[in-house]
């Protein structure tokens, strides 16, 4: 074959392959769309060019589409982790692999995690295989009051560039053991937060010179404009009430992260339309800020009309290392303690997308949304349930991880049986 013919043939092949891959139909799905309290049974979800084009019960797969038969299994939007440090750490005890925060320096709110994202992290590989397609990765508490820095939205496709949106919000931690960086009092933390916002307002004012537009002020500009949230990690009721006051006084979009005593302030949070990203496992008085910890925090907040997303922290272990599995377990636990089932599902899919301002692109199974979907082998809120197929932008993701490779290397090949234990 002449070289140009070869090239042409190759071109056709690639184009043909691309066309086939671009249209996908998931059939026989129990589709939890998050746009309704009930699933669409026997749903056909059609995907073209990485977007969902239709969700129809009993719908036909388009001619030429690649068909994935869900066999009646549940299908959900890809999981959306509302608050993690994915991409910013590998082995937390090996500090050179940790980029999740700063202990010193003047960056403040301008500390921006986007420059540290490691797409090859094994934590991301596992989160993806566990069905997480999007994640907010945010800085940990810094040593410099009042801000931790700016977070980013990741899309966990198999790609070297995971950044979906930068400057997704500015983060701060107040109370608990964090007061030391403000001189030893949470009062000072709130004052510093307010004075920083005041200073940024002044520095960014039209009349100010360009020189006053410091990196920190620039980072705070969208926060002050109410375009992106100021996410405040607080647990004690008094701090939650302070956060509500702050949101009111500065017309900010505030998100509470943690919120262990948020149930005590449920009415006020609902009135202020402030969402809470909470850990449904947190039922122990781990510190004096958490004396009111209870398992039905999520249920009580929902009942009062507060928007809630769920993540599991577990001393940081689950928040990043088992991001996908733990958030499902947490949502299941919230449901076990009174949260309606559909709200449990939404707390790990559509609600995080709403809180972080990207609900127009993801978090639901609806025409026009990104085709980030997971087929589960059973109820997705049961911890023992596993993903069967993970699609991101309509592409099937590999479920191979460091762990599955180890399993396959060491799994005994013969002689396995379940033993019955003798008394």
């Amino acid at each position, binding site marked *: 074959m002449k070289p140009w013919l070869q090239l042409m043939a190759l071109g056709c092949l690639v184009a043909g392959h691309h066309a086939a891959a671009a249209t996908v139909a998931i059939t026989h799905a129990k589709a939890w769309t998050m746009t309704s309290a009930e699933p669409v049974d026997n749903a056909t979800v059609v995907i073209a060019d990485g977007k969902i084009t239709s969700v129809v019960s009993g719908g036909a797969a388009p001619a030429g589409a690649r068909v994935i038969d869900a066999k009646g299994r549940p299908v959900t939007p890809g999981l959306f982790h509302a608050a993690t440090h994915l991409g910013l750490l590998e082995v937390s005890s090996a500090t050179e692999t940790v980029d999740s925060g700063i202990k010193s320096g003047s960056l403040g709110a301008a500390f921006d995690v986007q420059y540290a994202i490691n797409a090859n992290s*094994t934590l991301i590989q596992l989160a993806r295989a566990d069905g997480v397609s999007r994640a907010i990765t945010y800085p940990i508490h810094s040593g410099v009051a009042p801000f931790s820095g700016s977070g980013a939205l990741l899309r966990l496709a198999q790609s070297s560039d995971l950044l979906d949106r930068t400057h997704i919000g500015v983060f701060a931690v107040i109370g608990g053991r964090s007061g030391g960086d403000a001189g030893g009092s949470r009062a000072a933390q709130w004052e510093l937060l307010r004075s920083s916002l005041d200073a940024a307002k002044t520095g960014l004012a039209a009349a100010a010179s360009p020189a006053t537009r410091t990196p920190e002020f620039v980072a705070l500009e969208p926060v002050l404009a109410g375009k992106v949230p100021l996410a405040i990690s607080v647990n004690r009721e008094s701090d939650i009430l302070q956060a509500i006051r702050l949101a009111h006084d500065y017309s900010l979009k505030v998100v509470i992260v943690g919120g262990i005593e948020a149930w005590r302030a449920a009415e006020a949070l609902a009135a202020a339309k402030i969402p809470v990203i909470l850990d449904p496992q947190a039922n*122990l008085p781990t510190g004096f800020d958490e004396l009111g910890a209870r398992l039905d925090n999520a249920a009580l907040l929902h009942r009062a009309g507060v928007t809630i997303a769920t993540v599991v922290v577990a001393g940081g*272990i689950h928040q990043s290392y088992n991001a996908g599995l733990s958030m499902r377990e947490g949502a299941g*636990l919230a449901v076990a303690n009174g949260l309606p089932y559909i709200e449990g599902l939404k707390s790990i899919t559509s609600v995080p997308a709403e809180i972080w301002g990207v609900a127009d692109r993801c978090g639901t199974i609806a025409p026009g949304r990104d085709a980030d979907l997971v087929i589960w082998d059973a109820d997705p809120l049961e911890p023992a349930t*596993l993903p069967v197929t993970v699609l991101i932008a309509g592409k099937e993701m590999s479920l191979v991880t460091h762990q599955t490779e180890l399993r396959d290397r060491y799994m*005994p090949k013969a002689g*396995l049986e379940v033993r019955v234990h003798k008394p």
Partner: protein
Amino acid sequence: MRLVVLAAAAGLFAATLGAGAGATEASTRIPLPFTTDPYPSTYQPLPRNDTLIQGATVLDGLGHRMDSADVLVRNGKIVAVGQGLSAGGAKVINAKGRWVTPGIIDVHSHDGVFPLPYTSGDMDSSDVAEISDPNAADTWIEHAVNAQDPAFVAALRSGVTTLQILPGSTPLFSGRSVIVKPVPVADVRAMKFPGAGQGLKMACGENPKSYFGEKGRAPNSRQGEIALVRAAFLQAQEYLQGWRDYESGARPAPPARDLKLDTLAAVLTGDIPVHMHCYRAGDMTTMMGVAAEFGFRIRAFHHATEAYKIVPQLKAAGTCVAVWSDWWGFKMELEDAIRENAAIVDAAGGCVMMHSDSATVGQRLTIEAAKAAAVGKRAGLKLPPEHIISWVTSIPARALGLGDRIGAIGTGRNADLVIWSGDPFSVYTHADQVFIDGALAYDRSNPRSSPGPDLLLGQP
């Protein structure tokens, strides 16, 4: 060979240990002090009735599932399991549609010593371990346990009826453990499981060397850890020989009491089992080698994230592993932790159980088992509920030396039971009723059944 040595040692001391289990009256001089308990349990069962639990799905903890089965409890013991049992005056509980299992056992807890709320004071000087020396074998964790730690209440309400409280893994010899029941009392002695032995917590790998190494002290390497462990056991051998000579009359006076060597000598005699924090395969095989060198057996490795790589060696040594379902990655020695660890060890004939190491995980040990089994099933293994319940009941019971008393639903066993609202491996299921020694210690339908911790009294 090692077994012969052990048997000989046990034979020698069974006749002379005054307070040891199975001791005879042959003691002529003062008893060996290694295993006597100067602080015996003052535990009293909670007020109790005889009870007939009717019509439940019963997982007995020993591999059996019985549908529509009854369990009859009298005087704190299980007296019958079967169908159509007669109450004979016992209080009847209808458990139709619900599940009954033995009380859950957590072999690795720090409840009471990572007290809640955890404050700055605890950060400066935590009771979880005495860390002034890599050898804290003279410390007894029971001397620190706060019986009013809210974590015990949470454990009870989740179906846990027995916990082993272990000291933390900073020292190589971290101290003696204590086995407790999560009952609402004011002091630890009233929680102590009567007649239960202590264990010795040991640690290997990163924790001891990183802590002491950073302080410019030994050990600062894995090999340094092993050297210190061997040196300590050499001393313990001498100490033990001194006692043996005294017992046989070959020396007139007993050796001067040494609390560290007391503990290590009791390990050498087999009276105190070793529970060892280790992650890496090589760390575990090295420690099994040390145990063989000194003629004892390691009862269980805890965490043991690479157990799946060395199941034959674990089996040969008769050593169990206590594991999580999914913790990994946060230290170098956890890099190769896999979720299939428990399933692989189990399927290859090893001895495995779930543990918590966390007051939060400790409230969901059945979910730990469910998660570990799920990935095992994905890998083709058969792990039904009646089997995996043993990972949190009968197997930890045996690891604690209490296999004849707890961890199973059978005639003559302690009536430590949980009535679950449904399948105990589902996240939606609650522990409806929890019995300890036949007493209803928690009833979900009656909040007054289980008092909350003192800490929270008067809280809004």
